[in-house]
């Protein structure tokens, strides 16, 4: 008797509770249809498909700091790593298309489709534009390396096929740079997977590999300390931030790469919202204080609007597909 009473009491309380809470919801909901003019109405999550401490993360956080000022809402960086960045990309595609979840990523997104890892690429997203270009893609050797310059290395590699070991992350942006070099100079290198940016630094400092392709901004201190030397950068011409570093083209190697960092939204996001975000990015990129801070990473803040970004990435994809053909 007493038990059944308790059981009923239990059920009733649950029911009452659910209705009360559901009732409360009426007042707080109704904001589901986000008006573009209100945007953003809550904190924005920037999904970074790379770990903390790398260049993608650093650029995302620095931009986030200034975007917060422009948008008036907290900008939260969420590092979602795994599967060459596809996990993070999927998260944005699965999120609600209300403009409060955005992807911040680079060239590797294009590579994932080219290598058959995923069906998604830049055109799956609604792009809010490119914010940063990194022209300091370089090949580093250790300070006491026997290679004086790029040509020196290429000649040695030609004479000793498969002898020169070069680090990469298989399927990553740097892998493509190696393929380009091999193809252009018709040489064969021993391509070794060592992992992400910091593991590449370790591999070179520990003398485990001969050459490491990376971003000059990540290793500039090692250049200053004499632990590493740059063989040149893959920019079309010398870059103001690093005037002493020769380009590959100058040294007779036809290989040009530019790392770009972009923002992408779920494709169902209203245009007005993407526009609002894009405008905010433009303002940040033109903010002198931001530009000054970004210089530390040796990157060039460059705003490309959604259409320009689309065209730019389309061209990049075509080039990458060509390079990946064997």
């Amino acid at each position, binding site marked *: 008797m007493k038990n059944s009473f*308790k059981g009923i009491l239990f059920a009733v309380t649950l029911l009452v509770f659910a209705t009360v809470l559901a009732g409360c919801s009426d007042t707080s909901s109704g904001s589901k249809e986000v008006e573009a003019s209100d945007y953003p109405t809550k904190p924005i999550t920037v999904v970074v498909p790379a770990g903390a401490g790398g260049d993608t993360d650093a650029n995302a956080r620095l931009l986030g700091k200034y975007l917060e000022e422009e948008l008036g809402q907290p900008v939260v960086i969420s590092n979602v790593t795994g599967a060459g960045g596809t996990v993070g990309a999927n998260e944005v595609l699965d999120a609600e298309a209300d403009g409060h979840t955005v992807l911040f990523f680079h060239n590797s997104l294009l590579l994932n489709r080219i290598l058959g890892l995923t069906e998604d690429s830049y055109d799956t997203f609604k792009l809010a534009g490119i914010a940063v270009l990194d022209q300091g893609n370089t090949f580093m050797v250790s300070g006491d390396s026997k290679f004086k310059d790029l040509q020196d290395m290429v000649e040695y590699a030609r004479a000793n096929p498969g002898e020169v070991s070069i680090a990469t992350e298989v399927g990553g942006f740097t892998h493509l740079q190696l393929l380009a070099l091999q193809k252009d100079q018709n040489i064969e290198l021993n391509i070794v997977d060592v992992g992400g940016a910091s593991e590449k630094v370790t591999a070179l400092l520990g003398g485990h590999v001969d050459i490491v392709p990376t971003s000059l901004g990540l290793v500039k201190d090692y250049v200053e300390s004499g632990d590493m030397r740059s063989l040149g950068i893959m920019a079309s011409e010398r870059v103001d931030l690093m005037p002493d570093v020769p380009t590959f083209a100058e040294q007779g190697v036809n290989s040009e790469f530019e790392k770009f960092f972009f923002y992408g939204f779920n494709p169902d996001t209203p245009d007005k919202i993407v526009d609002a975000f894009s405008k905010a990015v433009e303002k940040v990129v033109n903010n002198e204080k931001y530009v000054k801070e970004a210089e530390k990473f040796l990157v060039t803040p460059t705003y490309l609007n959604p259409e320009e970004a689309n065209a730019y990435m389309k061209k990049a994809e075509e080039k990458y597909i060509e390079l990946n053909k064997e």
Partner: protein
Amino acid sequence: MIRVNKDIVASAFLILFSAVMYAASNNIMKLTVSKVGADFAPKLVAIGIFILSVFYLINSIKQLKGSNGGETGELEQEDDGDQKEKKKISPLSVFATVGLLVLYVALLPIIGFLITTVVYLFAQMYLLADKKERKIPIFLVTSVVTSVVVYFIFKSIFFLMLPAGILG
């Protein structure tokens, strides 16, 4: 006795598991030219599990035969003592808890964190507590306070997006 049967069930399951694992390893794509590709380690582990489970099965059968003769291993005796300690195991209650957990996680994205958590907490406390200990008002207050506090701390201070569900 029952324990030894359990061992046989576990080893049979693991043998099956290793077979499925090995078969699935054959479907792994290979990109690198190296002989040791993405399927090497999975196959190695599958074979390892297979061999060990076979040993495990043989041991269990041996012990089963041995226990008929009244001779049990050191382990068995310890476990028997263990089992006497908690005699009153209620499998129904275990199933109810697991069911409740499954429902909780499944309904979280649909109904939202606040309501689901309140209901889950209350039901779970009710289920776990001894009949004499079921103090419904305390359970209710604790459930609501915990859910609300956790929700708002995580949402407003930590910006962790807990599913809002119908509370949108």
